[in-house]
């Protein structure tokens, strides 16, 4: 793509910088209220140039609001939004120079795919010939160059979202905003399209904010994942950090599958049914806690080998998941754990087994056990 065209309607000088370098986006203490509901509470997040950050969280956590505030589709009640250092809080959506893909299909039904892609260029008064060639180029980028004349109703859901992506990218915006773009698609298309999005994003080096409630999606495509709850960010980190060293029990619970076991913290270590495990946060004060253990951090042994090195239990259920097997075991000490293991290991229901801990650091949550509490 040539770098020469700059939108004449955009007043900000930062658009002259080529898209390839990417823009820096900063939310600084952004507050947003809907009536009495606080949707964003002192929301702070920085997106580095060319980075893909996923905003992950349950519904109502404020992730879509954060994205809409950045797009200018919602006003802010406080704080600043900076793009390359310029406060854009007061700039109307049409001049923020953002590309956005929506959750619901948003192609203009009265225009063909090509004309949809041309729309943003038309708004920027790009001459017809250049418009057409750039639109064709953008459609080529998403692999739909032969669909220029198709209308939205003649395209599949996945194709519509790809056209929407081309439409968002053709103007070479400063930031790409993806608002759960894959959630309306079926599983297979979703995976292939998210890979395509990631490939294109890396290729163009465009700073991208990707909102999703699907943790697999977030972990798979993002450079960094920001987990949101209650209008603020709980933790920001690489997918690996988030998964292996969750800062809070909420994240341990929300990102990936976790077993919750009763335990006791003593001298910077957690004790679970007599087994001592390292803590993610060794400064955790002593006392009763709930311990979060990943299914892959548990291993399965037969009852005969080395008794005393694990927790004995009985197999409740074992399901084949293709590349791995997931087994539920009821522990003799009480409670049920889920563990993941090699498919070649084939426990039968009712079999007595030994559950061992891999010794990976565990996150914990202070917890006072209550009498007659149901095991989680």
């Amino acid at each position: 793509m040539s770098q020469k065209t700059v939108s004449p309607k955009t007043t900000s000088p930062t658009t002259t910088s080529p898209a390839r370098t990417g823009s820096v986006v900063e939310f600084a203490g952004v507050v947003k209220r809907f009536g009495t509901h606080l949707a964003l509470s002192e929301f702070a997040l920085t997106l580095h140039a060319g980075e893909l950050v996923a905003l992950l969280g349950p519904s109502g956590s404020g992730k879509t609001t954060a994205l809409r505030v950045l797009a200018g589709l919602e006003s802010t009640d406080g704080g600043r939004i900076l793009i390359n250092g310029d406060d854009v809080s007061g700039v109307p959506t049409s001049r923020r120079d953002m590309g956005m893909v929506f959750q619901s299909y948003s192609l203009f039904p009265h225009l063909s795919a090509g004309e949809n892609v041309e729309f943003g260029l038309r708004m920027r008064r790009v001459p017809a010939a250049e418009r057409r060639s750039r639109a064709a180029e953008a459609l080529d980028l998403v692999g739909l160059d032969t669909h220029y004349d198709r209308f939205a109703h003649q395209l599949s859901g996945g194709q519509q979202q790809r056209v929407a992506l081309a439409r968002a990218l053709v103007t070479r915006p400063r930031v790409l905003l993806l608002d759960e773009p894959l959630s309306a698609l079926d599983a297979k298309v979703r995976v292939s399209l998210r890979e395509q999005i990631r490939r294109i994003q890396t290729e163009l080096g465009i700073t991208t904010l990707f909102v999703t409630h699907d943790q697999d999606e977030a972990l798979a495509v993002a450079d960094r994942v920001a987990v949101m709850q209650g209008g603020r960010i709980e933790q920001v980190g690489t997918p690996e950090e988030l998964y292996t060293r969750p800062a809070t029990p909420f994240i341990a619970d929300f990102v990936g599958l976790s077993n919750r076991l009763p335990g006791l913290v003593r001298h910077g270590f957690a004790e679970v049914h007599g087994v001592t495990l390292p803590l993610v946060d060794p400064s955790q004060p002593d006392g009763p806690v709930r311990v979060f253990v990943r299914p892959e951090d548990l291993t399965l042994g037969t009852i005969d080998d080395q008794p005393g090195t694990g927790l004995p239990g009985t197999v409740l259920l074992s399901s084949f998941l293709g590349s791995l097997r997931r087994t539920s075991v009821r522990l003799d000490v009480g409670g049920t754990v889920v563990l993941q293991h090699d498919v070649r290991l084939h426990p039968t229901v009712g079999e007595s087994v030994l559950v061992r801990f891999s010794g990976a650091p565990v996150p914990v949550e202070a917890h006072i056990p209550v009498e007659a509490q149901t095991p989680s």
Partner: protein
Amino acid sequence: MSGDIRVAHAPNRLTRGLILGVVGLVFAVPILAMVEFTLRRGLEGGYDLHRWTDLFQGGLTGEYKPVLVALGNSVGLAIGTVAIILLLLVPTMLLVHIRFPQLRRVLEILCILPISIPAIVLVVGLAPVFSVVAQLVGSGVWTLAFAYGITVLPFAYRAIQSNLDGVDVRTLSEAARTLGAGWGSVLLRVLVPNLRRGILAGAFIAVAVVLGEFTIASLLNRVNLQTALVVVSKNDPYTAVILSLIALSVAFLLLLAIGRLGTVRRPRAQTARTPVSAASPTSTPTPTGARP
């Protein structure tokens, strides 16, 4: 979304033909009866064209000239009423739909209200209002457009609302705005083209209502087509029927013209529609056929 607007299960050929036939018959019989009536020679029986030729050989410029004037009035009123729908109702509905959704019920009730008020009651309320209007802008017949703008509200509202419900107006306008469109462009380039069917239907109905309106014009002592026809029919029922037929054709042509207006700009590649645009002399500025 476009998928939602289209009919999922089209009726088969036979059902379609049957429905069209029955509906066509309902419309055709009275019109044919009117034509037959105007062709009658007199009490002795037989048919000829003398009433038509009489009318066109001087009748319209002499004795029946007021009808022609009245027709002009009605067409002007129709245009004025459609303008009110397009310039006032459509933007208001869009504004409420996009920005103030909590006002939707209020707007709906306001717009549907006129249908529950008999025209005669409406006039009682309108009479003092129109005396003020007359003082302000004169008592020209065009001022009736304000009243007609109210009487056509329920029909126009329904037509536009049903289209509005089928289009994700919010997302489309947000998408357009992120692409750099200001509100004007959002309205004219995105929303109006996608609501064209509802807006046109609303305009059609407005025209039809205005051309057939009698009560309000009569009671406010304004001359429109229907009041003029009533005057004529008292003297000469044959001529009144001929004039009614002409009025019907004018209305028909007008609707056809409006319908044409909507399809000329962009021939749509929709299977559910058979656009008239094939015969359109003006081509679209950007031919969609060419691929770069």
